[in-house]
């Protein structure tokens, strides 16, 4: 039975359970007229039955669907003749894949022998049997749960409290997903990174000056052992981030000052939404623009004044990234400036300072912690930005501070290492997770500090 049909059947049963629970509640008090004798509103008895009918069955369904493929594959491997069972993990994997494809009727690579055909038939049998069992079990449990709930309905039964308790648990579960996500990120990145550091020492990764993650397929190839010194990546990331900040901080800050202090309300009403559009453009679009419009432009401009500019220069990527970050800096600075009490500005103006003096000498120092927090968040955003650098920055890990040369960044390397076919135990793919760990830790620190600055400061004047 198809999963969708099963879900629909379950939903129908749940709906039925609701009405049966409600009807039952009327029945136990002897009709609609006496419904005031019930502890809870009749609907709650319906919901109570529905929960008992649906939740256990749904839980079983989810677990089954997640576990089913693994169990079936294990069973198939178990039933293979001895020769196949001694194969390496990779070969076995390929064989199982072929069996699955054969079972699904797709084209497969290699020859089909009797063993495989046999296994494929068995695979189909197992899947069909599993489907039947799943359908019978979930529907059975749903029916059983509903029946148990129906039997428990009495006039004095506290259905509302029970239902509300379950809803509360669901709410708690929903809010824990945020925690689970963080735990998931940390664990998934950490485990693979630890596997990586078993092969490559941490010191070499953190302080090594050469990055060439290409590990050879054959042992006797040139450069068969890749080198994993990540310093060029960190340097490249910092270079592009620095260029972006040089663009974004002054422009963003001055924009915020102009909009807060000088502009007429009509200019503000136009400029603010326009800047918000800038913030809403997908980064891949910025990347396209950086690679196809800005990079050639930077190149021609550089060559016209006699500079050697790489076609994937750090400058082009940094400039566009800076533009992307302007709205972030300007909106956070704007918040910070607006949080400073107007009395301070009025006081400065009353003492005869010009508006710019009041801004630079009074407002900005007062808003500084908020602005710094905002800049830290912007730096974190620039470090973690992926698409612009993937499309506009290079792949070669040059250790340079020259913005006209091509550099590569942490995120670019993560993408290049993980896109395409990969086996999961080579140092090359694991390196991506080590880089991901670095990225996560660094941005996390910047975010925590930045957010604390922003929040602490906001409270200071409230």
């Amino acid at each position, binding site marked *: 039975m198809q999963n969708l049909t099963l879900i629909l059947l379950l939903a129908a049963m749940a709906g039925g359970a609701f009405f049966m629970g409600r009807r039952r509640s009327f029945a136990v008090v002897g009709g609609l007229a006496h419904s005031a004798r019930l502890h809870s509103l009749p609907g709650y008895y319906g919901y109570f039955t529905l929960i008992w009918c649906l939740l256990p069955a749904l839980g079983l369904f989810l677990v089954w669907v*997640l576990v089913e493929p*693994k169990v079936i594959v294990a069973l198939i491997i178990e039933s293979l003749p001895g020769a196949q069972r001694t194969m390496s993990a990779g070969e076995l994997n390929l064989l199982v894949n072929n069996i699955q494809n054969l079972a699904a009727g797709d084209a497969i690579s290699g020859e089909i022998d009797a063993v495989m055909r046999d296994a494929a038939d068995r695979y189909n049998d197992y899947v069909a049997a599993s489907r039947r069992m799943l359908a019978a079990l979930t529907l059975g449990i749903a029916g059983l749960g509903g029946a148990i709930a129906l039997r428990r309905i009495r006039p004095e039964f506290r259905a*509302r409290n029970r239902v*509300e308790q379950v809803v*509360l648990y669901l*709410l708690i579960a*929903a*809010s*824990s*997903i*945020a*925690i689970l*996500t963080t735990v*998931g*990120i940390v664990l998934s*990145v950490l*485990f693979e990174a630890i596997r990586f550091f078993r092969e490559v020492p941490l010191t070499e990764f953190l302080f090594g000056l050469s990055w060439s993650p290409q590990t050879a397929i054959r042992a006797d190839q040139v450069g068969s052992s890749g080198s994993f010194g990540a310093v060029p990546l960190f340097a490249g990331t910092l270079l592009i981030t620095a260029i972006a900040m040089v663009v974004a901080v*002054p*422009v963003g*800050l*001055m*924009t915020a000052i*102009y*909009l807060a*202090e000088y502009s007429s309300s009509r200019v503000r009403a136009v*400029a603010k939404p326009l*800047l918000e559009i*800038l913030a*809403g453009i*997908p*980064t*891949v679009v910025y*990347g*396209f*623009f950086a690679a*196809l*419009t800005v990079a050639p432009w930077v190149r021609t401009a550089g060559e016209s004044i006699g500079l050697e500019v790489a076609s994937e220069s750090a400058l082009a990527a940094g400039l566009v990234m800076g*533009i992307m970050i302007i709205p972030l800096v*300007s909106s956070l600075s704007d918040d910070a400036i607006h949080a400073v009490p107007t009395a301070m500005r009025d006081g400065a103006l009353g003492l005869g300072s*010009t*508006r710019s*003096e009041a*801004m630079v000498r009074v407002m900005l120092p007062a808003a500084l912690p908020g602005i710094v927090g905002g800049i830290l968040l912007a730096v974190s955003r620039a470090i*973690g930005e*992926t*698409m612009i650098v*993937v499309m506009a920055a290079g792949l070669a890990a040059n250790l340079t501070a020259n913005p006209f040369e091509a550099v590569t960044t942490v*995120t670019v390397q*993560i*993408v290049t290492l*993980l896109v395409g076919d990969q086996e*999961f135990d080579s140092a090359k793919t694991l390196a991506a*997770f080590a880089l991901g760990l670095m*990225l*996560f830790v660094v*941005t*996390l620190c910047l*975010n925590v500090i*930045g*957010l604390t600055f922003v929040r602490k400061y906001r409270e200071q004047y409230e």
Partner: protein
Amino acid sequence: MTASRKKSREIVEAGLARRRRKEATFRATGMLATAVGVIFLGVFFATLIVQGASAFKQTFIKLDVVMSESVLAPDGELDLAYADFDGLVRNALRRDFPNVSGRGERRELYRLVSVAAGYELRDLVAGDPSLLGSTVEIWVPAASNVDMLIKGNIDPSIDESLRPISDAQVAWVESLQRSDRLETRFNTALFTNGDSREPELAGIRGALMGSFYMLIVTVALAFPIGVAAAIYLEEFAPRSRWSDLIEVNINNLAAVPSIVFGLLGLAVFINWMALPRSAPLVGGLVLSLLTLPVIIIASRAAIQSVPPSIREAALGLGASKMQVVFHHVLPLALPGMLTGTIIGMSRALGESAPLLMIGMVAFIVDVPGSFTDPATALPVQVYLWADSPERAFAERTSAAIIVLLGFLLMMNLAAVIIRKRMERKW
């Protein structure tokens, strides 16, 4: 006393001109900074439209194809899968240009029309077998280089070796134009086809459907979970370490680089749970984790804006805490929650970095038909096409971006309208 007052007045006046100049410079700098962002936006949209508008048009060539039985069914039996429809196209072109001789030149001639011409003929015959033996007048898509020439993206005046189209081809195209056998029409292939290696056949349908399936998964997961989490944190959570932790955590998650979510998806959903690679289901799962913080933060703000008097009134009439929330607070906060969700969805629609991690960058021709079919997403399609060297793909990339931005604009407009229409001021 008066002397010193006079003196300070002099000091102030002496500096006044300089200070006013400074003030004017400061103000001008501010104006300039604001202009930078706005000007960039203008340049950006202008380049995009200039580059992309032409992709919505496509060049077609008219051929008089003789459905000759000797070519299609040399053994007397027509097998659609193996019949030489390309041969018919070649014959038709040769008839149009009888003077062309020699293998090399003929091959150049054949390259004027897209490889799709043969497929179109096959579909025609498949739909109406009685066409066999007759002569059919049919408009077929031109090859992408011809298309580029017509749209002015290839300059025929530069040296022949520097352009992908030869002098002879240019001459043939001009002769086709003169005899009205060549015209540009609306490019429907862009919206009905999946990806292709041939620019003139490549469309965004597959990517659009991939994005669509992903957003369905995302909204189905992120909206209920986000709203539930917000309700718990705002209305039920006791002020404890745990709820503080959740709160800090959500704010941080909102600022974690999106690529890290991709690593999570790769390690957990694909390696651990063994869900299929490149599937919209996995993409949707990752994107829902990514947008969850956005939705939670927006929903919390919406709940906070419901005045406490409403809760107190309901409590006073005997409602339970849960009833207060679900009967009164939630309906009033819903517009704000919906706005936050739409904004979160528009962020998810534009996101591509985490999708690269879970294998949604494959070259996929088929339009996905379910949540587990291999698929790409619209922004990933932009990335893939931007990498292609053909000039015609640059044009299509811009067109795909225009479509993507169009969707984002619609979503944001919807959010604004919901906010304007439904939000209450207390």
